[in-house]
């Protein structure tokens, strides 16, 4: 008994060094909450800088792990697994978090609540870090809940009736989804007697389980995860939340929690596919979900007048494109998914940066308000055109490379398995790229083709948002002409297939 306890304690103790980014995150959350208690001058600035520094540190240590960690490590009594795939995801989350803090530097919407805001944001990044490494069903649940509960509160940070309503709706739907997920997990526990879902014995027990209960349980868990990535038909929370939450929060929601969902879905699919012995045809199920998601995202975006809402719907469509990686589900597919995710962070954050920048500086909210903007600032207009082209997936931007890769993976999956659903998804997805052009082009169309009231002087150009935005657009162009480096980085991640 004492021996076991000692063993556990040393296990935890020896795990801690590998948990540095997470420890910093927790420390940062506590620090920000603590500093937020005091009434000091320039508190808001302090908070922002503190959050940015913390996230930069997290990113630094994530990257250090990437450079120095080649082994797969089971940590904290096998609750989490630190492998290169997890580290790569963590780098993406850290980057997404840092970008969001930087883009929100000028945002004034949350008045005196910036302490709470940044603490919650770091919590989401923390939850995402946990989820990326989870190798135990309970760990998944804890990570997802950390993300979700913080997200419910962040939704209400516009402090008006709409955002409170959206927050409450999100909470209700989210709680239901979590309930369904944990219910499914409890069944799986009943089949296997274990929660360590990456272990061999878990798989073996699952293979022995009856088909029908297994189908129900695995669909329940998957549905809970699909809820997080706003995949149809579990997307109904998204429009409300995306409309009423503050713009930086929406940008944040469209990357970190969503990609966290993908991180765990990849790991989860590896298990639940049971090496092809699953009674569920996952490729078909996910292909239908992907098609629905793309269609709903795209066709809802078509009718939007509000730029932010249009981007929000389009990010649902991008969930569908990312899902293609899970449909094809080969090593190439997962690598393409990671590539797409990295590019998606760049282009989506860049788009949101300019939407919120223009909203603040020029009071441009609806797509029609972009009228004639090219004459105010040709530079920003050009940058926005590149971003929109990248979101559509046209060359010469990395958005094209991402789509090329993910569709190549899908094609390869089809060629290998002859699964007709994949072919339908391929055709459907590519045709939807044409549909998406129609709404992405609206912003350049109004900016450039329409005469507008924006003949006024350009506002200050040297803001942190513009630097960030230019950097991202530059990255989007460079990653089209030279994707080799990023791809080589992703190539070095191995997946057990």
């Amino acid at each position: 008994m004492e021996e076991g306890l000692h063993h556990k304690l040393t296990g935890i103790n020896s795990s801690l060094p590998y948990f540095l980014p997470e420890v910093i995150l927790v420390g940062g959350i506590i620090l920000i909450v603590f500093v937020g208690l005091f009434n000091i001058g320039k508190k808001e600035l302090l908070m922002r800088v503190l959050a940015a520094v913390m996230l930069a540190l997290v990113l630094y240590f994530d990257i250090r792990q990437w450079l120095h960690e080649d082994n797969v490590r089971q940590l904290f009594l096998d609750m989490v697994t630190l492998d290169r795939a997890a580290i790569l995801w963590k780098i993406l989350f850290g980057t997404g978090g840092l970008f969001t803090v930087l883009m929100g530097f000028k945002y004034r919407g949350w008045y005196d609540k910036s302490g709470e805001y940044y603490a919650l944001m770091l919590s989401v990044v923390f939850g995402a870090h946990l989820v990326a490494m989870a190798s135990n069903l309970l760990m998944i649940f804890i990570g997802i809940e950390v993300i979700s509960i913080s997200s419910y509160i962040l939704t209400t940070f516009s402090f008006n009736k709409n955002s409170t309503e959206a927050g409450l709706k999100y909470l209700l739907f989210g709680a239901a989804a979590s309930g369904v997920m944990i219910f499914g997990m409890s069944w799986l526990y009943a089949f296997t007697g274990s929660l360590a879902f990456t272990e061999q014995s878990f798989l073996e027990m699952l293979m022995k389980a009856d088909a029908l209960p297994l189908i129900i349980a695995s669909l329940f868990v998957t549905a809970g995860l699909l809820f997080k990535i706003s995949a149809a038909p579990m997307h109904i929370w998204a429009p409300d939340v995306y409309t009423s939450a503050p713009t930086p929060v929406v940008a944040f929601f469209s990357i970190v929690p969503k990609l966290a969902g993908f991180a765990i879905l990849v790991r989860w699919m590896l298990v639940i596919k049971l090496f092809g012995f699953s009674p569920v045809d996952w490729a078909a199920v996910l292909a239908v979900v992907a098609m629905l998601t793309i269609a709903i995202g795209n066709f809802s975006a078509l009718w939007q007048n509000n730029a932010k809402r249009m981007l929000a719907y389009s990010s649902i469509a991008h969930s569908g494109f990312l899902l293609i990686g899970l449909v094809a589900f080969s090593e190439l597919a997962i690598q393409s998914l990671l590539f797409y995710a990295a590019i998606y962070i760049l282009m989506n954050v860049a788009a949101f940066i300019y939407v919120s920048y223009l909203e603040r500086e020029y009071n441009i909210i609806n797509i029609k308000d972009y009228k004639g903007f090219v004459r105010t600032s040709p530079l920003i207009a050009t940058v926005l055109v590149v971003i929109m082209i990248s979101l559509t997936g046209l060359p010469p931007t990395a958005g094209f490379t991402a789509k090329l890769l993910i569709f190549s993976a899908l094609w390869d999956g089809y060629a290998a398995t002859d699964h007709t659903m994949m072919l339908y998804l391929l055709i459907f997805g590519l045709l939807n790229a044409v549909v998406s052009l129609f709404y992405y082009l609206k912003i350049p169309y109004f900016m450039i083709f329409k005469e507008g009231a924006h003949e006024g002087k350009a506002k200050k150009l040297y803001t942190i948002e513009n630097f960030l935005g230019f950097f991202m657009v530059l990255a989007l162009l460079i990653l089209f002409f030279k994707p080799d480096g990023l791809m080589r980085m992703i190539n070095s991640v191995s997946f057990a297939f």
Partner: protein
Amino acid sequence: MLNDYLLSTLIFLPLTAAVIIALLPQPAKQFYKYIALFVCFVQLILAGVIYFGFNHNLQGVREIESFQYTEFTPWINFELASLGKLSANYFVGVDGLSVTMVLLSVVVLLIGVVSSWNITEKAKGYFSLYLVLNAAIIGCFVALDFLLFYLFFEFMLLPMYFLIGLWGGPRRDYASIKFFLYTLLGSVLILIVMIMLYLSVVDPAATAVELNLASNIENVSPDIVQQVQDMLLARQVPVENLVHTFNMVYMTDPGNYIPNSVMDVQVVRELLGQPARLLAFLLLFIGFAIKIPVVPVHTWLPDAHVEAPTPISVVLAGVLLKVGAYGLIRTGYLIIPDGAIHYAWWIGLFGVISIIYGAMCALASRDLKKLIAYSSVSHMGFVLLGLASLTSEGVSGAIYQMVSHGIISAALFLIAGVVYDRSHNRIIENYSGLASKMPKYSIFVIIFFFASMGLPGFSGFIAEVFVLLGSFSSSVVNGLIPRWMTILAATGLILSASYYLWTIQRMFFGQFFTKGPVEANSLTDINRREYLMFIPLFVLALLLGIFPGLILDLINQSVSLFVETVNNHEFKIPHNN
């Protein structure tokens, strides 16, 4: 030295100039057009160097070593997980099939700048976009790597969209987005085939290097290539050593296809109930048919032309349509010849339909520019018919028609532009007896109308005769095109004579008067700048009509190899031994 980077200079010179124009301050406004003119003029000189340095005996087509002015630089290289490696290269070069297109583009683009001389509104945007378009067009014609080709192909869309949408006529919004959506739809279909192809084809030279059969790509001999292909067939190449390539020349060799891959001929893979290769050809055909355009996917063209400003119409009809036909030749016909043969009858049929339907629409058009736009549809139908016949005469005729139509249609759109510049109205019935009011203009109109309807002595005649000869002999040579198609196509000539003559009669002969919004005083005869555009085009149309050797000498060797390659293609299912 110059020859080593000739094609890159052709591509990157306008791009650089576009950036310079974009960065120049507003007061430098009046210099934009001079920069553009200078760039296009330098391109003309470089094209002259290409023309005179071009070796007529090197065939290109499917022989990678006989392309000329080639440049090769590795571009994208990374691992494709369990599939091996991906390799895309900056690989450009010309052969007989593409050199004429490069020459044509350079000429038409230069004329386009002259025609843009009076554009002062948003001149900075206009000339930089024009130069970007210029670079993309040249890039399309010289790219030998599918990804590179696709990049340039897509890259034409955005400048074109803005050029039509910003400087166009009253319904430019509708026309520009229609153009963009149609063409993007086409390129998505091409993208599918590109994915299918690069996942199926390997680069034998790079694979040899991967297999340590050679130390670097320069040291790969034909023997080693053969060895790699044999190993590939015997499935002895480990997957991680396969180098997937976008190289369009390698794609023409059945030996480079991975056994059992989707595009491989050995196993007939079925997609949606169609053999994969045939479906791929169909997708390429539809994709490029939108660009050519072929009836019934031509409907973007009249709108785009009517709304586009004159110089953009000139470039659109003169060069952009040829990109579609050239793309079909370079990818569809050469990479999937089995599909080309299988669908030859249908391609010929759509060619004939385009000829007749386009001519009928032209006959019914009230707008002069629309009439010319439909006549483009009709004349591009000949290109399709010539290609479908797969005879030397037919294919030479098709390429000749592309050049000839490039020159003549450019002139025709300039003609429509002259009237529109003066009166801002192009409705045919609003004019009468222009011959007495604008005699010099009328002479050019009549010359180019006759050239376009195929009067002997002009380039159009040679082209159409070759196409008709080729398609007529096809039923004997390879049995692809039935005779009635040729006969029907020939009636298209009568139709084209009728709409041109009828237009001449209505607009230029008889008593001079104008109707509607047209002010008689505004109709002045052509000025010096317009002479400058019409005369070179006239000289070219005449020269090519009298000395067909100017073009034929360039293309003959390549065309005969092309015809032989496609007719006797090796993409056949081998018999069981």
